[in-house]
C-alpha cells in the first residue's frame, strides 16, 4: 500500500493504481470523458489532467501512476483553464444538435460542458462529413457528433477481441471507420460505450430519450450465459433499444449481437393475442375461459383413457413457468416433461451426477486460469461473453488458450493450439491428454483414490506406443504443444459445449481428464448453457425427457407445448409423423410457429419483457427476469389457472413459487447478497442472489462436502480407447464428410423474425484468424462452408452448389469456402429459416432422423 495526498486529503491505495483510481477511491471526482472502467486508459480527452507538486507539467490522471508520497492537485485555475480550453476544442468539432440527438440528457459532453460553464465556443473549424458506412448496419455512425474519444475502438479490441473499426485519417480529418478485414461481429461494444450520440442503434425507428423512457434491468432471453441488460421502453410497451452501460455482473457492460439487437420479436406485429382452435384446418377464435376448459378437459379425458400426457417446455421459459408445468404434469398419472435443454445441459447434469462433480463455478474464476481449453463450443454463436471472459484471462493473466474444434471459432485467432479434431473424436484427444498425464506422472495423485482409476489407467496406458489413431485427427505437433501448456499448469480450466455433449464418450473422456488434472478442486470445469434457462429447466424437471423421445413415445397422446417448436431443431418429417399420432395438441407461444399448424389449440404467451420471474444461468446463479412492458404474462397466467382448474395448488405470486423451489432444494438462498445497483440513471431492483442446484446434485454435494472431491468417479471408456468411435468414417465408407450444424438451439423467436432485416451482404475477406463472424449468419448469403482443400479436391469454386447426401436425405446448396475448416468437414449455420426464401434449417434437419449436431454425409459437385 502506498500513501499520497490528493487535494490535501491523504489517500492510501495499492501500488500500481493510477492517480485517477486513487482519487475515485478517495471520493475525489476528476472530470473524464474517454476513461471507462472496463477499458485500459485511452487518454484522448485530456480532461483528467492533474498537477503533481514538484513537476512542471500537467499530467493525465488516468495514465499517471499513484506514487508514494506525491501531492496531487486536481483543481486549480491552470487546470480549469486547460479543461475549459479542451472542452472548447471538443465543441468546436461537435455539432450542437442536442435537440435531435438520441443521447440528449445522458451525454457526457453535455454534462461536462454544463459543469464547466461553457457558454460560448471560441473557435471555428469546418469538419467534413465523410459519410462512410459503419462496420455493421445495425449501428449508425454520426461522424460529426463523434469526438474521437476512442472508446469504441478500444472496446472493439479489448472487449470483443476484434479489429473492426479504427481511426482513419489524420489530424482534423480523423474519424472512426471500419477496417478492411470485415472483422465486425455486431456485438455493439462500441455502441454501448460511446459517451455521446455518435453511435446509435440503427434497428428501432423510435428511440426515446432518457426522460421519455422507462428502463428496466432484466435477464437476456437468448443463451444461458445470463447477461443482465436494460430494456429502454417507450409508452410502457415498445422496446426501443437495449442498453448495457451499467456495470452489472456477469457481463458488466458487454453483450453480444443477440442480446443487444435481438429484441424486436417482442414488439412484433404478428404476436398472438388470443387463443384459437384449429378445426379442420380452420382457425376459430375462442375465449380464454373456453381455452382453459378445452385444455383441461382434453388432458383429463386422455389421461382417463390411460393415455400418457406429454409436456414440452422451453428452456427459455422462467423458473416459475417451468415449475407450474412440472406441477401440472405431476397431476397426471402417466406424464412426461421434455425440453430441448435435455440435449446439452441435461446430459451434462447427468454426467456430473454420475461422476460426482459439483456443478458450482463462477465466471470470475476464468480470469485466474493460466491455461484454458475451449472444446466443442463456438462462442461466437452462443455464450459469446464466455469468449470475452477468456480474452480477459489472456489480457490480465497472460493465459494460454487451447481450442478443440474442427472449425474455426471465436477464440481460434488467439489460440496457442487449435486442435482440429475429427468431429465426434474428441474423446480420443482427451484420452490422449489423460494418457500423457498418467505416463508422465503429472496427474493429481488424489485421483488414485477415485473409483475407476485403475481401470482408466489400464485402458489408457496399456499400449507402450501412443497409437496414431488416438490423436483424433489432430496433428501430433499441435497435440504436443497443447499438452505442454497443460502438463505443469495447476490453474487450468475447461469450457465446453454441445460439440462435446453430442457424444457420450467425448463427455466422459473430457470429464475424466478434468478429474485426473484435479480441476474439480482447483481450476475450472465449465459447461456452457445454450439456453437462457437450461439450467433452471434441468433443475426443476425431474427425469427430463428429450423432445424427440417424448414425441415418438406412442403412449403419449395429449401434448402441451410451451414456447418450444420441435420443428426448430428436429427432423421435420419425424416431428410431423409423431404429431399426427397425438389426439390433442395445445401450443402456447408468443408468435406463430411451425408446430402450431399441427395443433388443436393455440394459446398466446408473452415475451420475456412482460414476464416476472427468474432464470438460472449457466453459472448456477438465479437472475431476475423483470417486467418491462405493459400487458399480462399470458402464458404464466394460463398455466397458473390450468393448474388450479386441474385441482392443483394456486400460486398467487412469484414469491410463493420461489419459496416452494427453495423448499424443494432447487434454489438455495445464499444470504441476501445483492447485485450492485447501476450508476445513477437507471434504477434497478436488486434481486436476491440464489444458487441453484438440481436436487440430486445438491444432495450429493451435501453428503460429499466432507468427502468431496474424493467422491468423484472416473468413467472407464466404454469402448477400447484405442479404437476410433463408431462415428469415425471408416475406410471405403461413402459418406466421408461430416456436416456440423451450427446454432441448432438458437432462440426460435429470432428464427422466424430475424433480429435484423437489414439485408446487406457484409461478408468480407476474413483472415485466417477470424474466419467467420456472427454477422455473416445475419447478413451473409453464405451459410454453408467447406475448406479450400476439400473445395480444390472436389473442384468446387466458391458459390457453386454441392449435393449433400446423408442416410436420411439429400440437399443441394451453394457452398462458400472458408480457410481454417478441417478437411472432411462442412459447416452450416442454420440461422433463420426464411433467409432468401429457402428454409436451410429444415433442409439440413431433414438430413438426420436422429437429432444430431454432426451428420455423416457425402458431398459432390452438381
Amino acid at each position, binding site marked *: 500500500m502506498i500513501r499520497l495526498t490528493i487535494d490535501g486529503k491523504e489517500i492510501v491505495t495499492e501500488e500500481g493504481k493510477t492517480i485517477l483510481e486513487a482519487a475515485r477511491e478517495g471520493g475525489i471526482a476528476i472530470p473524464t470523458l474517454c476513461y471507462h472502467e472496463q477499458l485500459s486508459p485511452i487518454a484522448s480527452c485530456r480532461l483528467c489532467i492533474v498537477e503533481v507538486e514538484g513537476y512542471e507539467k500537467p499530467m493525465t490522471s488516468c495514465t499517471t501512476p499513484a506514487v508514494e508520497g506525491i501531492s496531487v492537485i486536481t483543481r486549480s485555475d491552470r487546470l480549469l483553464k486547460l479543461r475549459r480550453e*479542451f472542452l472548447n*476544442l471538443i465543441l468546436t468539432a461537435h455539432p450542437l444538435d442536442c435537440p435531435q440527438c438520441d443521447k440528449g440528457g445522458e451525454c457526457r459532453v453535455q454534462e461536462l460542458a454544463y459543469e464547466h460553464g461553457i457558454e460560448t465556443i471560441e473557435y471555428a473549424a469546418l469538419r467534413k462529413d465523410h459519410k462512410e458506412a459503419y462496420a455493421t448496419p445495425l449501428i449508425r455512425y454520426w461522424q460529426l457528433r463523434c469526438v474521437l474519444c*476512442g472508446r469504441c475502438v478500444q472496446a472493439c*479490441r479489448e472487449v470483443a477481441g476484434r479489429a473492426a473499426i479504427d481511426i482513419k485519417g489524420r*489530424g482534423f480529418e480523423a474519424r472512426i471507420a471500419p477496417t478492411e478485414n470485415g472483422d465486425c461481429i455486431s456485438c455493439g461494444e462500441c455502441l454501448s460505450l460511446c459517451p455521446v450520440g455518435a453511435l446509435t442503434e440503427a434497428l428501432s425507428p423510435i428511440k426515446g430519450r432518457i426522460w421519455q423512457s422507462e428502463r428496466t434491468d432484466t435477464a437476456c432471453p437468448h443463451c444461458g450465459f445470463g447477461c443482465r441488460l436494460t430494456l429502454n421502453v417507450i409508452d410502457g410497451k415498445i422496446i426501443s433499444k437495449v442498453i448495457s452501460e451499467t456495470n452489472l455482473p456477469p457481463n458488466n457492460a458487454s453483450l453480444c449481437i443477440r442480446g443487444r439487437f435481438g429484441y424486436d420479436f417482442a414488439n412484433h406485429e404478428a404476436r398472438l393475442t388470443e387463443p384459437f382452435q384449429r378445426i379442420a384446418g380452420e382457425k376459430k377464435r375462442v375465449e380464454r375461459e373456453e381455452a382453459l376448459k378445452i385444455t383441461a378437459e382434453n388432458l383429463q379425458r386422455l389421461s382417463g383413457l390411460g393415455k400418457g400426457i406429454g409436456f414440452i417446455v422451453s428452456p427459455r421459459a422462467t423458473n416459475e413457468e417451468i415449475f407450474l408445468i412440472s406441477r401440472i404434469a405431476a397431476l397426471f398419472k402417466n406424464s412426461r416433461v421434455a425440453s430441448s435443454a435435455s440435449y446439452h445441459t441435461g446430459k451434462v447434469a447427468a454426467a456430473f451426477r454420475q461422476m460426482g462433480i459439483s456443478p458450482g463455478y463462477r465466471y470470475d474464476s476464468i480470469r485466474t486460469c493460466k491455461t484454458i481449453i475451449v472444446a466443442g463450443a463456438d462462442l461466437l454463436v452462443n455464450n459469446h461473453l464466455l469468449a470475452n471472459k477468456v480474452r480477459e484471462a489472456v489480457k490480465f493473466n497472460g493465459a494460454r488458450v487451447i481450442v478443440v474444434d474442427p472449425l474455426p471459432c471465436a477464440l481460434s485467432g488467439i489460440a*496457442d493450439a487449435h486442435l482440429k479434431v475429427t468431429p465426434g473424436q474428441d474423446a480420443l484427444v482427451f484420452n490422449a491428454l489423460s494418457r500423457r498425464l498418467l505416463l508422465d506422472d503429472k496427474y493429481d495423485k488424489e485421483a488414485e483414490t477415485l473409483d475407476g482409476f485403475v481401470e482408466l489407467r489400464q485402458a489408457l496406458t496399456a499400449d507402450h506406443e501412443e497409437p496414431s489413431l488416438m490423436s483424433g485427427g489432430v496433428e501430433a505437433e499441435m497435440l504436443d504443444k497443447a499438452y505442454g501448456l497443460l502438463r505443469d499448469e495447476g490453474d487450468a480450466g475447461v469450457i465446453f459445449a454441445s460439440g462435446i455433449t453430442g457424444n457420450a464418450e467425448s463427455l466422459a473422456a473430457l470429464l475424466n481428464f478434468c478429474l485426473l488434472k484435479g480441476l474439480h478442486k482447483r481450476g475450472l470445469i465449465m459447461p456452457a448453457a445454450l439456453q437462457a434457462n437450461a439450467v433452471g429447466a434441468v433443475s426443476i424437471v425431474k427425469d427430463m425427457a428429450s423432445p424427440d423421445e417424448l414425441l415418438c413415445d406412442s403412449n403419449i397422446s395429449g401434448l402441451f407445448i410451451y414456447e418450444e417448436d420441435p420443428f426448430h431443431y428436429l427432423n421435420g418429417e419425424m416431428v410431423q409423423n409423431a404429431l399426427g399420432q397425438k389426439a390433442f395438441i395445445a401450443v402456447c407461444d408468443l408468435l406463430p410457429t411451425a408446430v402450431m399448424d399441427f395443433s388443436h389449440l393455440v394459446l398466446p404467451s408473452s415475451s420475456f419483457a412482460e414476464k416476472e420471474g427468474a432464470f438460472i444461468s449457466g453459472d448456477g446463479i438465479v437472475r431476475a427476469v423483470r417486467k418491462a412492458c405493459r400487458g399480462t404474462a399470458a402464458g404464466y397466467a394460463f398455466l397458473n389457472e390450468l393448474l388450479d382448474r386441474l385441482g392443483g395448488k394456486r400460486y398467487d405470486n412469484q414469491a410463493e413459487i420461489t419459496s416452494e423451489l427453495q423448499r424443494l432444494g432447487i434454489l438455495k438462498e445464499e444470504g441476501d447478497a445483492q447485485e450492485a445497483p447501476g450508476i445513477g440513471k437507471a434504477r434497478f431492483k436488486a434481486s436476491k442472489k440464489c444458487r441453484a442446484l438440481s436436487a440430486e446434485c445438491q444432495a450429493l454435494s451435501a453428503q460429499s462436502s466432507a468427502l468431496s472431491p474424493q467422491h468423484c468417479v472416473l468413467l472407464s471408456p466404454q469402448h477400447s480407447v484405442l479404437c476410433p468411435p463408431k462415428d469415425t468414417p471408416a475406410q471405403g465408407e461413402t459418406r466421408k464428410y461430416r456436416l456440423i450444424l451450427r446454432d441448432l438451439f438458437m432462440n426460435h423467436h429470432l428464427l422466424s423474425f430475424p433480429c435484423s432485416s437489414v439485408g446487406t451482404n457484409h461478408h468480407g475477406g476474413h483472415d485466417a484468424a477470424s474466419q467467420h463472424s456472427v454477422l455473416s449468419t445475419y447478413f451473409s448469403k453464405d451459410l454453408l462452408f467447406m475448406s479450400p482443400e476439400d473445395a480444390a479436391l472436389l473442384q468446387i469454386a466458391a458459390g457453386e452448389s454441392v449435393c449433400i447426401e446423408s442416410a436420411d436425405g439429400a440437399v443441394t446448396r451453394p457452398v462458400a469456402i472458408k480457410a481454417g475448416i478441417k478437411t472432411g468437414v462442412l459447416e452450416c449455420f442454420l440461422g433463420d429459416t426464411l433467409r432468401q426464401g429457402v428454409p436451410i434449417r429444415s433442409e439440413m434437419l431433414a438430413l438426420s432422423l436422429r437429432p444430431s449436431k454432426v451428420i455423416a454425409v457425402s458431398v459432390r459437385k452438381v
Partner: protein
Amino acid sequence: MANIIFSSWQNELFDGRGTAAPDNGPPANLQLAAEFSPGERIKALMGWDGIVLRDDDVDIVDMCAKYAEAVQQESCGKCFPCRVGTRIVADWLKKIAAGEGKEAYPGKIRDLALSIRDGSKCSIGQTGMIPILDALDYFPQAFAAAITEQKKAREGRYRFSVTAPCVSVCPSNLDIPRYVEEIREQRFAASLATIRQGVCMAGTLGRVCIHPCESNCRRANIDEAISIKWLKRYVADYEMEKNRHPEIQGHHHKDAKKVAVIGAGPAGLSCAYYLSLMGYRVTIFEKLPEPGGMAAVGIPDYRLPRAILHSEVEIVREAGVEIRYGVEIGKEIKFADIRKDHDAVFIGVGAQGSSPMGVEGEEKNYRGFISGVQYLLDINLGRDPYPEGKKVVVVGGGNVAIDCVRSSFRIGKPDVNLVYRRSKAEMPADPAEIKDAEEEKVNFHYLCNPTKILEKDGKVVGVECIRMELGEPDQSGRRRPVPVPGSEFVIETDILIPAIGQKVDYSFLEEADGVKLSKRKTVDADGETFATSQAGVFASGDCVTGPDVLVRATGNGKRAAEKIDLFLTGNKVEASIDERFRTLFSTLGVYNKKEQLGVIGGRKRAHLPMLDPEERKRTFEEVEAGYTTPVAQGEAARCLRCYRIGMIALG
C-alpha cells in the same frame, strides 16, 4: 556555425539579426548541416527544440503556417488538443500568411499553442507548438507587419520529416513508437508488420539487438527506458506461438530482373527480402549448409534458438527468395559467372575470419587451438569441436569471447576461463552478458595476455600469459594495456580459443573481378549508395564495416536493396530524402539526455524471467523467457510516443 543568425534551439537563445554584434555565439552544440543535398542550402530549421535561422529572407510567418500544417498532417487524431487545436492554429497562421490576419490572432495563437503544448498526449502536439511559440516571441514584428499591412507572405520551399529519439539512432530505421503503440493497442500482427517494414528478422533482433534505441529513450529521463528489444521479441514470438502465418507477398514477373546475393547472413537476407518484395528475382548463395551467417554461427542457441532464425529465414523464402546452401563462391561458382548471370550482385558476406593474436605457435595448427568463430560454428552445427578437451581458455573481451565461454559449459566443459588484457570496465561485450557469464561461474582472468602456446605431441597443453597494467588512454579512449616485464605465468589448458576479433575472408573475389578493397581489407563500398568499384555490384554488412552489430547489417542490407532498385530501374543511385533527413537529424541530435520532462514517472520497465544460472549453463535452451501478453502491453503503455517534426527551408 558562423553563418547562423538566429537560434532558439534547446532554449539557448542566440540572436545575431540586425547590426549589433551579439555577445554570445550560436550554441556550440548546435550541429546543422549547411546543405540538405548537394546544391540545396538549408536556410532555416523549425523543429521540436526551436528555430534556427541562417538566412534573413526566410518568411517566418509562412514557415510557421507550413510547419503548423505539417503538425496537423502528422497528428494521429488520438487526442483533442492536437487534433482540433493544431487545426485552428494552422488556420489562423494561414490567414495571417494570406494577408487576412486579425490583430488578435497572435495572442490567441499563443494561448492555444500553450494549451496544446501542455495538454497533448504525445510529442507531436507537445513539441509541435514550440517553434511557433518561439516565432511569436522572437519575431513578433513579422506577424504584426503581416497583419497590419494585410500582406501576403513570401512562399518558401520547405521539406519536413518526422523522427523520434529512438528511431533516429536505429540502424534499421524502425518505426519504434508505432510498433510499440500497436502492442499497447493489442494489434500484435500490425506491430510485427510495422517491424517487418524495416527488418525481416524481428525474432532475432528481439533477442540479440544491441538496442541503441533504448539508450535514446526519453522515458529514461523520468524512470527507465522502454524495453524496445523485448517488445519486438514479444510480437515475433506471438506470431509463432499463435501459429499465425504472416501475409507476405512477393510477386515476381517472369521477366523480372535477377539479383544475386552472396551470403545468407543478416545483410544478405535483408537485402534479398526487400528486393524480392519489390518484385525482383533474388537468389542467395550461402557457403554453409544453413542460413543466418554470423547470426547463426556467432550467436549460440541459448541466446538465439535455431528455430527462431529458421522461421525468419522461412519468411524470406516465402517472400520469394531462393536460397542455395552449400555454394561457396570462388569454389563451386566463380564470382564472375554470378555477375554474368544476374543484373546486379550484392555482397553481404560476414567477417568470419579470425584475427591473429600474434603469439608464438599460433600458425602451427595444434590440436585444441580453435578460433572463436570456428568453435561457435561447430557447436552451432551440433558438434563438440574437440571432445577430448576439458579445460578451456578463451582470449578476448567481446561478445564472441563471452559466447565461447558460455557455450563451453553447455557442451559439458567443466573448467572454463577467459583471458582479457584489460579490466572488466573496458570489456566491449554487453555488460548483461558479462554478468550472466559471471553468474554461470566462468573464471575471468583480467589484465593478462597470452604470449606463447604450450604444446605436447601437437596438442595444446597450456598457454603462457603475461600480466598487464593499464597505461595511458589510446585512440579508442580506453587505457592501453602494457605488459609487466617478467610476470609470465602459465595456464594449463586443453583448448585455447582466440576471440580477439574477426576479419573478412574475401578469397571468393579474384583480382580480375575488380572489386576494390579498402585499406582495412574490407570491401570498399560507398557509405551512401553501397556501390562498389564495379557497376552493378553492391555491398554492405560486416564485409564493408568490419565486425559490426546485427541491426546495422539488416538496416544497411535493406538500404542497399533500395539502391539496387534505383540502379536496376535506371535511376541515379543516391541517398533518398528520408536518408538525408536521417543524417540531418542524427547530426543535430534528437535525444537530449538532460531534458526535463516535467512529469512523473514511477513505472519501471518489465524484466524477463530468466533460468537459474546453474540450470541454464548446462542447456542450450533459451535462457530468457519472453513477456506475457499483459506484461508486454504494460511495457508498451510506458512509451511516451516522442515523435517530432523537423522542417527545413531550402534555398
